[in-house]
């Protein structure tokens, strides 16, 4: 009996360690994200910081945003666009604990990105930007691993691979 319990516990912890963006990590990420995402002007600043960090890493990515004035991150059309993108990301994060709805949203986002020929390194630039701006916004109380694992889960869903 004892042996069985030990084996079970061992198995459970293996399973636990295996899933990186597990349910507890999702909840943590979600609550920290809600704090970083903020509202009003400070949300606009958060979005602008992320986009400037993206373009600093991948200047050629600006070409993808010609229609929404990607040459100037403080242009109203670009501000609106950057907030739209973050809003899509926000939906996915908020659905992390609701499997079916999360699946539907990731499929929807994948559909929206299809055909735009977005190279993987642009998504990497987004992740890096986010992982640098978030702690600047949150200070000490943030868990880098949690953000990394769950952000990657969402990005992979959007990329479709």
């Amino acid at each position: 009996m004892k042996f069985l319990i030990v084996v079970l516990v061992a198995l459970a912890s293996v399973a636990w360690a295996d899933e990186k963006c597990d349910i507890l990590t999702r909840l943590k990420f979600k609550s920290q994200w809600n704090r970083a995402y903020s509202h009003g002007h400070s949300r606009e600043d958060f979005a602008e910081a992320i986009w400037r960090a993206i373009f600093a890493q991948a200047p050629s990515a600006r070409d993808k945003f010609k229609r929404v004035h990607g040459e100037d991150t403080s242009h109203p059309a670009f501000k609106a666009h950057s907030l739209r993108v973050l809003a899509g990301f926000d939906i996915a994060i908020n659905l992390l604990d609701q499997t079916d709805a999360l699946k539907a949203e990731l499929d929807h986002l994948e559909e929206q990105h299809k055909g735009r020929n977005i190279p993987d390194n642009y998504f990497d630039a987004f992740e890096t930007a986010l992982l640098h701006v978030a702690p600047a916004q949150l200070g000490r109380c943030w868990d880098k691993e949690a953000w990394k694992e769950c952000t990657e889960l969402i990005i992979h869903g959007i990329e479709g691979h």
Partner: protein
Amino acid sequence: MLRVLVLLATACLVASDSQFCCSAEDRHIVEEQWDTLWHDTESSKLKISFGRLLLLKLAKEIPDVNELFKEVDIANPEGGKFSAHAMRILNALDMAINLLEDPPALDAALDHLADQHQKRPGVKKEHFKKIGEILHTALPHVLDDYNAMSWKSCFKGILSKIASKLNA
């Protein structure tokens, strides 16, 4: 007090079309009252339920709407597809409210939403009028502080801008 209200109402009527009488103070009030809803980590569940109720009520009042939301599986409102869609709609409202204090960016965001709805044949201006009515009935149920004047004046502008590219 009454005199001030009358004066304010007149000022709104006189204001030009583009100035849809949603003053800086109105915007601030709306943003602050809305923000009180989203402090909990579980707020996404509230967002989904609220969005779901909003759309189902619209479909009940104007049954033609059911057809328009067929693609997102309105027949199965508790399902993942419709839940995600309810969340998307609520998030669009959230984005608009959070941009109230930046009118040029708000305008760009609403213009994009207008384009997205123009592409959907069958979507009509009256649907947005109804959504406005439903919102004004529903919001006081979830918000302890609800300043009807501010919300109405700001939402009139938001919803009519989103519906501005529709023919009917």
